């Protein structure tokens, strides 16, 4: 599937990133970019450094070498909450929702950065704080409608089945109205129907909200269907980069996935 669509300028530029934990090298000289309105997949065998890459973009890890530029601004050593301020939202491989809170409250935390009422106003829940709360609640409702989770609004997240939790996590990320959305294995552990739903949501987000997306995924058919361009990592190095078709036929990629006789 190819999409006729104009991509904008580079939104995120990863340049020569190297990351090591003690003696363990997670990433080595990886460079690629993500353009506006693009769905970019990162694939690779287990331990290839995919999640590490996402964590570098999101500011969880700080690379020893190389630069990350977001919206043309080079940055070093941002914290995750600063990355969130820049307009980067994410989901996690092992769902990281606030389990004791309701779906609605979870998604409302996504609006956290957009809310401005000061502490004192909030302490008495009066005036600006109250108005703002209602205003943002309305925004959150549109996200809830978009992802078709109206019926579980008031359910504590811990009680939901896995597939729905993944969707709530996506909703929380979307509530922040991010420019760049990082999805770490959004379809891991889902059945076919859930995967199809999630694929549709990801495409809709990209299409209707114009959000650029970086996603890590193991299911090859999903990756080939969804993504505009694919980065392939193996042992922390980039071994291929291109459209799904180019990557699929790349000899290094086939070797990395199927193993190669030495």
């Amino acid at each position, binding site marked *: 599937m190819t999409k006729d669509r104009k991509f904008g300028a580079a939104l995120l530029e990863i340049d020569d990133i190297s990351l090591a934990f003690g003696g363990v090298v997670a990433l080595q000289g990886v460079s690629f970019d993500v353009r506006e309105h693009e769905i970019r997949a990162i694939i690779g065998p287990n331990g290839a450094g995919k999640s590490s890459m996402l964590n570098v973009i*999101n500011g*969880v890890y700080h690379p020893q070498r190389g630069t990350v530029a977001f919206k043309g601004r080079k940055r070093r050593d941002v*914290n*995750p*909450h600063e990355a*969130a*301020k820049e307009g980067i*939202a*994410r989901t*996690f491989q092992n769902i*990281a*929702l*606030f*389990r*004791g*809170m309701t779906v609605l*409250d979870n998604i*409302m*935390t*996504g*609006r*956290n*950065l957009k*809310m401005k*009422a000061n*502490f004192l106003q*909030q*302490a*008495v*829940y009066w005036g600006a*704080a109250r108005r*703002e*709360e209602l205003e943002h609640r309305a925004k959150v409702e549109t996200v809830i409608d978009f992802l078709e989770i109206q019926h579980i609004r008031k359910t504590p997240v811990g009680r939901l089945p896995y597939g729905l939790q993944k969707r709530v996590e996506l909703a*929380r*990320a979307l509530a*922040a109205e991010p420019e760049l959305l990082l999805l770490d294995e959004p379809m891991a552990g889902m059945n076919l129907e859930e995967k199809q739903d999630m694929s549709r949501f990801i495409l809709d987000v990209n299409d209707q909200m114009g959000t650029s997306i970086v996603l890590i995924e193991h299911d090859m058919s999903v990756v080939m269907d969804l993504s505009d361009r694919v980065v392939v990592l193996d042992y922390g190095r980039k071994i291929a980069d291109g459209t799904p078709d180019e990557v699929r036929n790349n000899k290094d990629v086939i070797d990395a996935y199927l193993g190669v006789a030495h």
Partner: protein
Amino acid sequence: MTSESYKRMQFFFEVLIGGLLAGVMYSLVALGFVLIYKASGVFNFAQGAMVFFAALTTVGFISMGAPFWLAVALALAAMVALAFFTERLVLRPLVNQPQITLFMATIGLSFFIEGIAQLTWGAQVHALDLGIADEPIDWLMNNTGMNISKFDLVASGIAAALVAVLAVFFNKTRTGRALRAVADDHQAALAVGISLQKIWVIVWMVAGFVALVTGLLWGARNGVQFALTFLALKALPVLILGGFESIAGAIVGGLIVGASEKLAEVYVGPHVGGGIESWFPYVLALAFLLVRPEGLFGERRIDRV
């Protein structure tokens, strides 16, 4: 009903109500612990010291000639400063350390706060007058013959109002939600743009405010003295009964502890030589641990194996 059994009933209710009102005061102490535990998973040993510090600071300013409300405002400012100080110098350097490390740090902090308080204001016992008399309510006395203190009733009212405000704050506002989010999952909280440092300052500020209210009420009742720091120990059985992360639990736990220790003292005490009020709550808590270790309102932790 014979007048004998009526008297007995009347006495029972007098003890029960007195105990419940005292229990509200325990709840107040426990509340400070719950707030910090909820947001950071740290058992803040210094909460008792904060109560002492807040009360002593207020009394100190009053003795310097400040009017009551100004002294309270200044004490509140001191608690806010303490929150910033604690976050910057104690919590931030220890981020990602095991909980036991943070717990030990709060023990150190409590010594520090106690020292600063006494260094600044001296170690003698101060009286604090909130203008509420600690005397029986006439109406109740005349109509039911029960001896319930006016002060206890007003103190309970203040505590109830404080709890109501905190409940709305926690459930309805952005910061309240952020506090709960941080309590639930640090990593996820960071990813949605919640600054842990800011949240910690806020939660220590709120705990400081609660400590101030607690300190004023307890100080007015028992005198502002070093013994206030031992309130922290009284909060333990309350927390074990109610659950460490529940505001509702702190309230109910406090009521149970207050009522049961007074009833035990009056009805069981004479048979075992008295003085059981001081240790009964701990035995109760111990028994409770065997049956429901997470407390009445605590979250049951289910781990995947």
